[in-house]
């Protein structure tokens, strides 16, 4: 038999004390000390990130770098459809959860695609990039695909009085490739791009 070590009597009652104390002390360690230490370091090293990477303009918080927001005016690049609340509700993240055969999904995509073509002056049988007509998982997707952005360039240029070339350059500036060259996808940050548009050709209301 295994030797050199004490063997505990199989009495559950004697284990009640360590069990109770383990829950208390280890909860304190992992649920209080750990987060407090992390807060101290995280807020010291990356205060802006810890606060949610908020974006300000003229001293006013206009959103977060990572959280998509609604744009419906023709002068702005438009984000993906959103199932978060009434659309881009930052307190109600989520997707549609519609299955691929669900008639609601197919009807919704049909409408969104027709709408997208009309809005961007495309032919009625033009192919539409899928991210433009499907909802993201979070409903707060901050990005669109480069193909989606390209199809909106002509509309933006017209509405802003900019050359298509100038808008295309801005799109290129706000397009990111896969991180470190191999993680994730090509994407265009909608909020960053729209802020740049406002700087390049301010709207009359601003």
């Amino acid at each position, binding site marked *: 038999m295994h030797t050199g070590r004490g063997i505990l009597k199989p009495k559950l009652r004697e284990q009640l004390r360590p069990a109770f104390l383990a829950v208390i002390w280890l909860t304190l360690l992992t649920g209080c000390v750990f987060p407090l230490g*992390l807060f101290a370091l995280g807020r010291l090293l990356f205060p802006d990130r*810890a*606060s949610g990477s908020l974006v300000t303009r003229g001293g006013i918080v206009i959103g977060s770098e990572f959280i998509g927001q609604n744009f419906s005016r023709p002068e702005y690049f438009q984000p993906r459809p959103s199932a978060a609340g009434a659309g881009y509700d930052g307190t109600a993240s989520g997707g549609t959860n519609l299955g691929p055969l669900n008639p609601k999904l197919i009807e919704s995509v049909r409408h969104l695609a027709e709408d997208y073509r009309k809005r961007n002056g495309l032919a009625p049988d033009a192919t539409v990039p899928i991210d433009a007509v499907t909802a993201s998982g979070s409903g707060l997707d901050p990005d669109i695909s480069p193909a989606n952005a390209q199809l909106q360039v002509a509309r933006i240029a017209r509405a802003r009085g900019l050359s298509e070339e100038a808008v295309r350059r801005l799109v290129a500036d706000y397009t990111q490739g896969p991180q470190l060259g191999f993680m994730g996808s090509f994407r265009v940050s909608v909020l960053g791009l729209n802020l740049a548009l406002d700087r390049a050709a301010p709207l009359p209301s601003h």
Partner: protein
Amino acid sequence: MHWLEDFVFVAIVVGLARPVGLYLVRVFERKHTFLDSALRPAESLLHRLLGVHSDQEMSPRLYTLCFLLFSALSTLGLFLLLLVQHWLPGGPGDRYLTTPMTAHLAANTAISFSTTTTWQAYAGETTLRYLTQLIGLVSQNFLAGAAGLAVGIAFIRGFARENSNTIGNFWVDLVRALLWVLLPLGGVGSLLLVWQGVPLNLAPYTQAHTLEGGVQTIAQGPVAALEFIKNLGTNGGGFFNANGAHPYENPTPLVNFLGLLAIGVLPASLTITFGRMAGRSRAGWVLLAVMVVLFVGGLALCDFAESAAPPQLARLRVSGGNMEGKEVRFGIGSSALAAVVTSNGATGSYNSMHDSYQPAGVLVPLVNMLLGEVIFGGLGTGLFSMVMIALVAVFLGGLMVGRTPEYLGKKITAAETKLAVLYAVLTPGVVLVLTAVALATNAGRAGLVTNTGARGFTEVIFAYASSMANNGQSMAGLNANSVFYNVTTAVAMLAGRFALAALALALAGRFAAQRRLRTTVGTLPSDSVTFGVLLLGTVLLIAALSFLPALALGPIAEALQH
């Protein structure tokens, strides 16, 4: 191009398996490690506080009872905290907490987090106070994860020891798992996440004045404190409703990749820990190789299904792979990789909505969970799931060639076979019975608020497979916050965590008491390619025998409707 990310992921997991696996051997055999000077004093202090004598050993029975007792008290503590959480100070304000914390939701949530399932019948941003997430959920992500690792190590000791009637001390293993593994890795990982943009604050929800003149309220919170440990402990419950799809939980592809490594590396490395402690290193590599083959197969199918243009949408002249429920920054590639890793790794932290996956795309995560997550699997628990199937494989192999079944020098007699078979039939038993009950009752069918037909069936079996496998991911179209689902999923979570662990530890106890047989010409070698193929076949055979009829009613029926 997204195969490159998949390849790098597998390469890192396999590359780290040996160093990490051997580090775990040193930690749990209490040999010297480079962290000792800092951690030994902390360990001594905790032993004193808990009244634990580190040289005392437990029988398998007592080890199991301590694991149960610790989990029961954790569940009770979390349940009480959830019931009183609306009196806790701090954000988010009451007007955002619109989901009432009913007793059945609190019980379901408490069981869910103390079993590492972290199934969530609620949405984080509309239900929980920041302090509940920190004190209640962050702590259970650590503690339940560490308890699972401890049980996995105790199971390994069954093969490592001979003529022994003990398998370690639960409290010593628990403390070691926390101090030497989860806390240091969790600390470094969480900081990396803050650097990449995961928030860490207790601020009120932000009122942003959008460019078009609207007001957008943005949920905040100490997200980074939960985000990394939820993956490292193979828990997976998100801070927000959308879990890993939420840009605050998973702001960049790098955060996503780190999270997937956190899920996969430790469970994969435990195969090497197992081989080394059992004195048969090659047997550990065989288990890992079988896992990698199954992983790559599942990933290829899921990625292929999601990358193809959905036929219903292609008809509407929409181009590209299935992006419904997926985020642009992840695209198809990182989404499918996350679906497969999280469903293998007992971690529900998906970054895309599985309910909107194609039939073959959702089949892969479902089968991964129904298999009992033998590919990498839950922290500690995944290893014994795979070894249990190895025992069945040994038994079948023994029948075929007429040799005495034995595995790593331990004899598989009738008693051991019974325990392994009981283990193998428990998951189909619980999952299929509960699915049948849900579909046969109005209360069960009331959950199908989004999809119907074959997809609705898949949602229900997915919920129970996820609960039983202590995974926690859902096809979120199912409305699961009802008395019926809160009770039945809790039953599956308890069976999946405690019944399976009790069987595994009972078996470990029997093996520890045996002496180790010498390898002879009559031994069926368990560290050869042949055995790997036999094991692979057994995994697929058990899955097919147990679940093919059920799968035919769900994803397979749906695929035929295309």
